[in-house]
């Protein structure tokens, strides 16, 4: 195997590296990683929880005050309820024995994806209160 050492480069390395300050114990002990990484991860986790909480919390509160007594309202219906304008009315109709939620808002008809709602038993036909006011 041939010698791959170049004396000029070797000398340049000797001079160059000797100018780098030596590592000393204070730097080694004072590790910065725990102080920079942990708060970042914690902050990111809290931000995610806050965003999820705000999103689903608002939908939950809308559904809870819109006339349903059932706790297990399907998410699709919660989203539909949350999308209704304030003061919009919705009512239950019977389509071939399947209850359906319908809202008429300024002439535009909006129908909730209520199949899941019917299966969950949150609305029974005939509906006891055919027209309830959404918040």
């Amino acid at each position: 195997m041939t010698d791959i050492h170049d004396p000029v480069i070797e000398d340049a390395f000797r001079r160059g590296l000797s100018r780098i300050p030596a590592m000393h114990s204070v730097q080694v002990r004072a590790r910065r990683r725990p102080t920079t990484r942990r708060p970042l991860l914690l902050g990111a986790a809290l931000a995610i929880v806050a965003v999820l909480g705000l999103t689903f919390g608002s939908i939950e509160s809308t559904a809870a005050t819109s006339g349903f007594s059932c706790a297990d309202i399907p998410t699709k219906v919660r989203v539909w309820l949350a999308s209704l304008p304030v003061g919009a009315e919705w009512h239950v109709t019977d389509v071939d024995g399947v209850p359906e939620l319908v809202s008429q808002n300024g002439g535009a008809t909006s129908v909730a994806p209520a199949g899941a709602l019917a299966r969950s038993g949150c609305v029974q036909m005939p509906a006891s209160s055919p027209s309830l006011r959404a918040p």
Partner: protein
Amino acid sequence: MALREITRSVPASGSSDALTEDRARWIAACEAACDKVYRAVVAMGAPAHDAADAVQDAVEQALRLKTPGDRPEGWLFVVALRAWKRQRWRQRLFYPLGALRGATYTEQRDEQIALLVELAKLTDRQRTVLIALYALGLSQKEIARILGVAPGTVGSIASQASKKLRKRLGEET
């Protein structure tokens, strides 16, 4: 270097508390190699604090090795380099959050040392080979083993990189 403190906090993987002769020799070798490896990581382009962190990580891992070798320089260099690259990746990833908190991250390189400036212009592989060869004093075979390439490849990379560096350093002076 506070290697004694580290050895006390990191338990050896063996069953007995007493250090065997091999382990004692390995720890002494790690202690002797630390400064050399630190300078090598700085020469690779790491800021001083990051290089110190990376070497500490590597030493902690070296002390946990079940079958320590004879010469720790190459092993420590590769592990420290990986640790630094991971750290650099994290810093870049979380840079926006750091900027929001008012912290600034800059990759500081020592522009005063011509060798480091010229090394930074080489490719990563060329820089690694030259530093392993001249800063750590590893042989061609040892470099080939730690990089996972053939010894002939190391020779060819070293001669190309030396030629380039020699020309550039000659232009500087």
